[in-house]
């Protein structure tokens, strides 16, 4: 792999290799000295055109634990307002000898565009409403661990329900692509106004009936719903949204025993997820965050660390 732009570019072999190596990386996390020499002398620039403390910090820690020099560039407010094009911004940094850009951008396709311009390798840390591949990988990693804890291996036959604002979510696109690779079965649940056009051809089940899905789901992944969507006419009121699509206490009780609860964060407690669900014993929300570092270490190592050249 030269870049990681989206789960659309991954093969099942790539994905499994990343997840497997992440397990080794997670061992480092529990050591008192959290440092591997793998990426010593490599320079990784985290360039974030949109705020995300969680993702940026996770990538920064991942890079540092692999001994890379990681630099954070906050480019929020976008280069356009400064009159500079994205291409010029990136070429300028590229010219400084950066090895890898970890890029977050509010526009779909920005990471792919950057990859076509620069010499450095590129990791997409979320582009607009398109993809967020490391989030999907860390979700898969978390789920895999959860299934193992129940004594079951693999994704085959597992039902993953993703619920909420699918239209504006990059997480859902990456998750559907990745689960299709890994053999999981995705069920998308949303009000019809928050479904992407053409979703019926994504190779997964689509429904607006959350309650019908509850007893079958092995994982319920709740997506953040933004209040602005209400003003946009996507749904009438927060109350109605919660009634139809929130993981309420009642729905929590209707879940299949052992079903895991995921949320890519940040959560709107009381809207798409009740506090009872967020803090439930089977909530994997904090596991997701912890897995994030290991998965990103694995991704960075796959892209930058391999000597075999197969990865470049």
């Amino acid at each position: 792999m030269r870049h990681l732009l989206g789960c659309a570019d991954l093969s099942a072999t790539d994905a499994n290799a990343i997840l497997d190596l992440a397990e080794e990386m997670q061992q480092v996390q529990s050591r008192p000295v959290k440092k591997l020499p793998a990426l010593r002398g490599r320079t990784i620039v985290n360039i974030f055109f949109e705020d995300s403390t969680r993702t940026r910090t996770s990538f920064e820690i991942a890079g540092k634990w692999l001994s890379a020099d990681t630099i954070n560039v906050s480019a929020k407010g976008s280069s356009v307002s400064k009159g500079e094009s994205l291409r010029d911004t990136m070429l300028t940094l590229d010219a400084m000898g950066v090895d890898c850009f970890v890029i977050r951008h509010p526009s779909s396709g920005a990471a792919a565009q950057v990859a076509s311009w620069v010499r450095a390798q590129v990791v997409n840390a979320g582009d607009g409403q398109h993809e967020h591949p490391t989030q999907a990988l860390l979700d898969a990693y978390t789920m895999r661990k959860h299934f193992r804890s129940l004594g079951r291996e693999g994704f085959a036959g597992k039902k993953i329900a993703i619920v909420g604002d699918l239209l504006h979510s990059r997480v859902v696109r990456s998750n559907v692509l990745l689960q299709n690779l890994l053999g999981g079965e995705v069920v998308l649940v949303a009000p019809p106004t928050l479904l992407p056009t053409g979703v019926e051809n994504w190779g997964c089940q689509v429904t607006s009936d959350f309650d019908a899905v509850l007893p079958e789901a092995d994982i319920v992944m709740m997506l953040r719903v933004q209040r602005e969507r209400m003003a946009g006419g996507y749904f009438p009121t927060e109350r109605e949204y919660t009634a139809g699509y929130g993981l309420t206490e009642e729905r929590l009780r209707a879940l299949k025993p052992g079903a895991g609860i995921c949320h890519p964060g940040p959560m709107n407690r009381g809207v798409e997820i009740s506090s009872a669900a967020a803090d439930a014993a089977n909530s994997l929300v904090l596991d997701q965050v912890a897995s994030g570092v290991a998965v990103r270490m694995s991704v960075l190592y796959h892209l930058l660390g391999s000597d075999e050249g197969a990865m470049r």
Partner: protein
Amino acid sequence: MSLLINGARLADGTITDLYLKDGVLADPASAPAGVERFDAAGLLAIPGLVDLHTHLRQPGREDAETVDSGTDAAARGGFTCVHAMANTSPVTDTAEAAEYVHALGEREGHCQVQVVGAVTKGLAGEELAELGMMADSKAKVRVFSDDGKCVSDSLLMRRALTYVKAFDGMVAQHSQDPRLAGSTACCHESEWSGRLGLPGWPSQAESVIVARDVELAALTDSRVHVCHVSTAESVEIIRWAKKRGVKVTAEATPHHLLLDTPLVASYDTTFKVNPPLRTSEHVEAIREALADGTIDVVGTDHAPHARQDKDHPFDIALPGMLGLEQALAVVIEVMINTGRMDWPTLVQRMSSTPAALGQVPGQGRPLAIGEPANLVLVDPTARAAVDAAASKSRSRNNPYHGRDLPDPVVATYWRGRQTYSR
């Protein structure tokens, strides 16, 4: 300048000599023995092409295009007349602004420059621009358009259509419901927009405005022209309206005749255009409509942009692509070479009808003795890979770069003067 063109074939198949003298076509028998000659055996001679929809960017964005460079590109494409759209900076919404662009055309143009006036002041969609003053000016404006922006206020659109009747003007509408396809819409709403995560531009955002406008044209008995039709739904409405006798005409761009949505999957902003590239079903409907006359003309929507305005993320980059130089090539490729259209029909769609709609005297005329010497010599079989770097335009946003296409234009003559030669 005088020139005797020998043995050219006209669109109807007749082989003839053409004698260009003092800007008109004179009797070839009257050409003196020593006159300069051009052997046109194997070439077609057709009337100079006329574009109803060109962005020349002057005044305001001379780094992207000027009247000089844009009309040079037009001549390279076989055009002898272009209509310069009003969305310059400042906007062409007064008689003075219209006369300025017109004068630039007369002074620096490599083809005739007709001025399109704005429908509303500053293209703001709120108050009518000085339509009558522009019509009465030296620029003799007859086509009015807020192109790039839709006149979305129904009442204002009604008033504009009513007002221009006084001087037989035409309102050319950029049909885009601003709520259904908002300012960020940049990809045909489809499986592609869903997968790519690009804000969708549903085809109905075009057709609902087309439907409204044909009703308003019927109400006012005035002329409405639908710019760059891109959807099958719009075509159906126009077909129906024409059957009812509504004064509606329409144009198709070369890119909507050839290119389709999957091209944006690379996020290459060269392929960002408004309305967006549609799926193949829509492309097919546009081709069919151009063949059967539901769509009356080819309009290029030549939209040059400087590199810095395209080097942005897809949703932010400016929409638009070049069109003048490859327009004829594209129409030959998708319409003539597929047997969907014959040459006389092509001449109507690209020359005589646009000249008539824009009420341009001396353009789109048959190649006959006494007519103005506006013509283009065409090699219908030549092909070449398009090279964006070889463009006469100041911009390089050419969506055909690298594509093998016809390379038809051998020479262009405007007012009897050679404006392009291969």
